[in-house]
């Protein structure tokens, strides 16, 4: 028997439930029906195939309880629920959905095992979850969109599949403007109803790029904001408390690749801020605070 499942949370949970019933079944996964049929045709299998998750289901809550028992109490504000755990892991570039199913089934209905890292596999997948969380959180921290022509757009790059969650986050933060997150040839658009699209939709990157204004005006506005930011960033430094180790950890090297502004900030973390600037000749350089 073959359990063929869609690589999303519902598909994974359904497959876990089926694997418990048929522990000897083979697992095949695909992101959509087309990919699945291609895989099955290619394998030439004549076994019975159970297709799971390719039609929408209701009641993920019941399913998660059936497969992983009662949700473990959140241990910190940032802890993920089992559903979020599965969703995040599936976005990891190295995650193998079939392996994830085996891990979940091996938990024997105790979701805690996903988090406590008692086996090698559990540790690896817990780290995957953390990698993906870190990847999109870093985007939230260090990506710097352009705001031109009333639309907020940003190009991102990540080994993991996080463009849509970042887009949702950005759209929630800016509910009054359309936002677009461009990743390769695709773009996720949030608050799309403001430009005649669905609230949240995936479209071609070229379409979003066509909505942007000419490059020259974009650069002028961006340069002004970046200049102001430099002044502000420099003003916040307390020289007597310089802590290069901590700063480098918090503003890591990887942040520099996310935007020009983050790159400039990272440079100052490494090299410090020159305290001899033209500004010193126009104002009182003393540090003050209220």
């Amino acid at each position: 028997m073959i359990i063929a499942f869609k690589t999303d949370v519902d598909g994974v949970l359904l497959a876990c439930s089926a694997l418990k019933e048929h522990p000897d079944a083979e697992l095949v996964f695909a992101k959509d029906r087309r990919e699945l049929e291609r895989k099955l045709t290619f394998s030439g299998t004549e076994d019975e195939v159970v297709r799971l998750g390719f039609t929408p289901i209701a009641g993920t809550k019941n399913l998660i309880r059936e497969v992983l028992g009662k949700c473990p109490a959140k241990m910190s504000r940032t802890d993920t629920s089992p559903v979020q755990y599965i969703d995040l892991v599936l976005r990891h570039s190295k995650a193998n959905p079939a392996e994830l199913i085996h891990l979940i089934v091996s938990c024997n209905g105790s979701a805690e095992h996903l988090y406590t890292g008692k086996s090698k596999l559990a540790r690896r997948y817990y780290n995957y979850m953390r990698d993906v969380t870190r990847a999109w959180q870093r985007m939230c921290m260090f990506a710097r969109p352009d705001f031109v022509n009333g639309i907020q757009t940003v190009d991102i790059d990540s080994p993991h599949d996080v463009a849509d969650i970042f887009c949702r986050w950005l759209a929630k933060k800016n509910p009054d403007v359309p936002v677009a997150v461009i990743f390769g040839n695709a773009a996720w658009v949030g608050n799309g109803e403001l430009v005649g699209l669905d609230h949240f939709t995936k479209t071609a990157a070229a379409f979003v790029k066509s909505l942007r204004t000419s490059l020259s005006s974009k650069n002028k506005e961006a340069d002004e904001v970046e200049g102001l930011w430099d002044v502000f960033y420099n003003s916040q430094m307390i020289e007597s408390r310089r802590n290069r180790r901590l700063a480098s950890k918090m503003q890591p090297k990887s942040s520099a690749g996310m935007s020009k502004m983050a790159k400039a900030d990272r440079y100052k973390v490494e090299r410090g801020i020159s305290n001899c600037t033209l500004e010193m000749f126009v104002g009182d350089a003393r540090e003050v605070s209220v």
Partner: protein
Amino acid sequence: MTEQHHTLTERMRILAQGTKYDSCNQSAVCHAFGPDGRCIQLYKTLLTNSCAGECAYCPNRNKRDTVRASLTPEEIVKITWSFYRKNAIEGLFLSSGIIGDAENTAEKQLEVAKLLRSQGFTGYIHTRMMPGTPKYLLEEIAEHSNKFGVNAETTSSVNYSEICPNFDYNNDILTRLKWTRDLIKKQRRKVGYGGRIVGANDTQFVVGAVNEPDREIISTVHKFMDRYALRRPYFMSFDPVPDTPLQNGIASPKWRENRLYQASFLMKDYGIKASDFDVIFNDDGFLADADPKMRLAYAHPDYFPMDINKAARDELLMVPGIGPISANRIIQARPITSEQELARMGVVISRARPFIEINGSKQTNLHSFMGVGS
């Protein structure tokens, strides 16, 4: 005290510099970190550094010869929006020198907050209020800000009158702290969970401007947590400023500020009471430059080594290297069989090792580890 002409950039620099010691809210996303490792989360600025007040430690005090500058509400709003759209900040932190009186200043601060909200700004607004701000304005500020509070600066009215002669500690500070506590409660009830974030009551102390010992500061913080639902205090080390009455004072060492922060976190997150610190103060009531949690542990050798698989949560929290999150994880994952497991849960093993026991095995007898009895 008239203002010379300065460009927008110059004014922005002068007024942002005036807030550099103010710590911002830690619960949202940080967007940059300064070379000192501190998170930059909000655009922090003063409305103006001209001030009618005469606080003895303050570089902005009235009649002091210094460069004065202001930003208009529109300018602050514009800068906030441009940083916000760039995803470089989560919102605005707004403080000010006193423009005439507290009422007038609060009106101007309110103008900024209202303008931002009227333009659809959903980001974070933290307003640092002036001592003596009238209640009706606090009520309005509460409608538009996520966080607001007034600085206590010190621990008693006697100390306060020494450094802030224009204001009254009981009326202008403590009464306002009570009002802000009640307004926060009301706002929380109103917006509920999932609505706008309503930050906890907030205040700041200038450490070392007067001679109050750490014992007094810690017990005031504890009292404020109790009475005014203060979640975390902010501390700013005193640095003597030329041309002020305290210009010949001695700068407070930066480590003192850090130790006070650590002590305040122990009260906030670890359930430690102000009186628990008594065993680690010196004769004059000051903390040493050492981690207070480690010092508390050494002061109670009879509590250790603690069996990691049996200790209650509040006992685990006494172990250096174990925080509230790792304590929860330990309890959930019991039985624990190795240090590696603890490390994966976030326990700092190098700190915790002398104080814990796992399945009967411990590093050494704590008494001998500490040299007790040798």
